């Protein structure tokens, strides 16, 4: 009977950090991160859409890099630092989110969390990307509503906005030099 697989599963304890807090989640080693985030942790800002890693609606940051959580299994997250869209907005809106708001870089909003995760990963690694680098970074995120024009404007605005904010790392560097 096929419910054997339902009954007998290896248990697994996922120890990781989620949105800055350490977490110990009873799981299965092969459980998808998307299911853990949405169903177990009720962090529903991460969206479920294609479930094959094409659309990007489920993207989260794992150690600062963007991953499709639908393709990521629990064991791959052990010891990692995971940030979901809720974590990005934990201390008020990020300048990227503010830019999406101001440019109207969303309509139905379903792709928006994943889109913002991709932009954050890009700009954290590369604060002044070329147009080509922006397109490359966002080519894994599908938006069906906007036609992407407002998203590109939001990214450009975010790049500008982040320039105005003193970067934590560079402040530390300056202090170290002093």
């Amino acid at each position, binding site marked *: *009977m*096929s*419910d054997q*697989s*339902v009954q007998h599963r290896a248990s697994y304890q996922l120890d990781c950090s989620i949105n800055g807090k350490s977490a110990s989640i009873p799981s299965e080693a092969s459980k998808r991160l998307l299911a853990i985030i*949405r*169903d177990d942790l*009720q*962090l*529903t*800002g*991460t*969206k*479920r*859409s*294609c*479930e*094959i890693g*094409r*659309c990007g*609606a489920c993207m989260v940051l794992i150690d600062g890099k963007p991953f499709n959580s639908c393709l990521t299994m629990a064991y791959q997250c052990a010891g990692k630092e995971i940030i*979901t*869209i*809720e974590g*990005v*907005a934990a201390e008020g*809106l990020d300048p990227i*989110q*503010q830019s*999406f*708001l*101001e*440019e*109207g870089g*969303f*309509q*139905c*909003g*379903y*792709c*928006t*969390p994943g889109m*913002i995760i991709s932009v954050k990963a890009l700009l954290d690694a590369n604060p002044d990307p070329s*147009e080509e680098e922006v*397109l490359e970074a*966002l*080519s894994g*995120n*599908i*938006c*069906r*509503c*906007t*036609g*992407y*024009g*407002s*998203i*590109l*404007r939001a990214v450009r605005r975010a790049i500008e906005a982040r320039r105005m904010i003193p970067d934590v790392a560079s402040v530390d560097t300056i202090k170290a030099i002093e």
Partner: protein
Amino acid sequence: MLLNRETSGGRWRIRPDGPAKVSGGLAYLTDMTMSGMLHGFVLRSEHPHARIISINTDEAKQISGVHAVLTHLDIPGFNGFGIANPDQPVLCSDTVRYIGDAVACVAADSPEIARAALKAIKVQYEPLPVVDSPEAALKSGAPKLHPNGNVLHTTAYSKGDAEGSFAECASIVEETYDTPRQMHAYMETEGGLFLTDGEGRLTVYSPTQHGLKDRMQLALILDMPESDIHVLSSPIGGSFGGKDELNVQPYGALLAIQTGRPVKIHNSRWESVRAGLKKHPMRIAMKTGIDESGRLIAHQVSIIADTGAYSTLGAEVLNFATEHVIGPYRIDNVDVKGVSVFTNNGVSGEFRGFGGSQTIFAMEGQMDRLAAAVGMDPWELRRINLRMTGDPGPFGQAIAQTDGALQVWEAVRKHPLWTERRSTAPQAPWLKEAVGAAIAMHGAGLGYGMPDTAGGRLRLAADGKIEALFGYEEVGQGLIASLSQMLIERFGFAEEDLRIIIGDSDVVPDSGSTTASRATSMMWQTLQRLEAPFAAKLLRRASQLSGLREEELRLGEGGIWRQEGSERIARYEELARASAEELSCDTTFLYPATSMKRIGAHFIYTYSAAIARIELNTLTGRVKVLQQYHAVAAGPVANPQGYLGQIEGGSSMSVGFALTEDAMMEKGLYAARNLDTYLVPSIRDMSGGIEVEAIEELPEGDEYGPRGVGEIGSVIVAPAIAAAIREASGKWVAQLPVRPEELQQTPPFIAKAVNG
């Protein structure tokens, strides 16, 4: 006015639903869960066409954790749905007609157990011959898919004598156009949460474009009074027409009622592809003739639409296509025949454009071919044939008059993309750049004879909020934002004064559907009707409260102000507290319709013209859209950000329609199951700039206000791309999406190297 953030100034507003969307905090209806919730799944047909011999659910019911396994025998009411013609079984009893047909549904403790239960349901089928095209369905002796045969609907329109007039034509072009089975591909697949309370009242949280219509259909299926069904239907993660019809709601409702537990359904992408609506593939044959001066003399059209297994709004789409296949042109002799045919393919139905994408692509293709045939400039050929102010609509019907057609076409003529279209400089010998343009008029509203109700309510709530209640839905288009902006600009309210109430069947009035580019227009017309009476009531109460005369007072931010000076004399909250009598106004009316008694004929049109500059890679045959310009004549811009977003977003759908999107079917089976093989445009495909020019001017005395812009962007780019491809390659495109292999060329330098 070129629409963008800068030109919009203070009218460019942050959407009220924006903060929750960018922060991930907005709970979509498919995000909802509840303790004790079960997971609902639907068993769908294994065959595109088969007779059901038996359905055995015994084994499935035995599985621990399975709480319900339902078949057609468990439907208390009518086993069918469909907005216009309810011929789609909720759960099939004797026949399955497409691969998405539902046969049984289950509710279980977990998705895994529910899937195991689906596998344990034994359905015995006797496969029947698959009718996989409209042509096959129309053959004599074809299997009969419905009691009345395989024809859902036919249309005809004629004036003059098209056949006889071809003899007078100096040039005639004949072409057959084929268009794809485009998929809506909303990012949020269908789903929701369904529950009953102890007294048998059902609550449905599930996205739809018309909550009250869902309630009506569910009441029939469940054999329950509508008052016992509470439908909560917004926000929605995209629809584009695809969630207009019922989808998972009947299953969720049946399972929740049967188990007495909350049931959640959230379709996988494959299930969404398999069961969901698509755009009608159409084969449109046209024969069009002009005289020596280029004037259109005769236009003969035949449309065959593949409506798939069931009706939904297939007939209405064909009506729309029949009207729009004539285009924004004066033609004395017209003969259009249309037929919408049942097949064993996926169900075709409501899709942004509603028959416009297919027909406008075909008609504009004719205009370009005719221009080429007689060596005329394609702009000029269209210009001399355009419908002008005072002209009737395509069926000869009375329409709301504007100068829209000429306005948008003149805008094309003046635009640098057009004036400099010959001076393109490709970067490599195998790349070719070219420019094409197209024009469209697109009807809004459901058309003559359809249930085109509109209306809404304004109310001062007990807590002092100004409440606006409408039966419309937020599918992402920015309906809440547009309504807020209209209230603020018309009445002087502050955003914080407002509470928008939509998507809740218990409290909203019947405003009609959120379809057919109608909602913004109808909200505007509602506010136009309610402005004077609602303001008068507020001022009267303020006058009673303050002792000042009504004439001395005005509405403003946060409350009632003196006309002169800057003194606020009463906050809205104080007005609300001053009397227990409810202060509200409502109105119900019909979407303005033409006087011609032809079902579906439109009265209000939006006009648009677009220019596309493309790059054709002749080595790969791939086309990239480099730049677009849209001139849109749709009356005053209610919400600049929303307007721009609709045109940009619509254009992306048109680019996909032209270049990559087709949910291909072979023998009734989908070839693509997900977004890896069904290709919607990515950011790379849409990185070229789009300029949107809003032409707001309307004739003096026009009383209809903003026209809809929800669909027009999605019907206009494909023909412009096709025209540009012809410029770049010399090849006419008659089938979409464009097939790269047909556009590949051996560049001269390679031919030379190879051939010497």
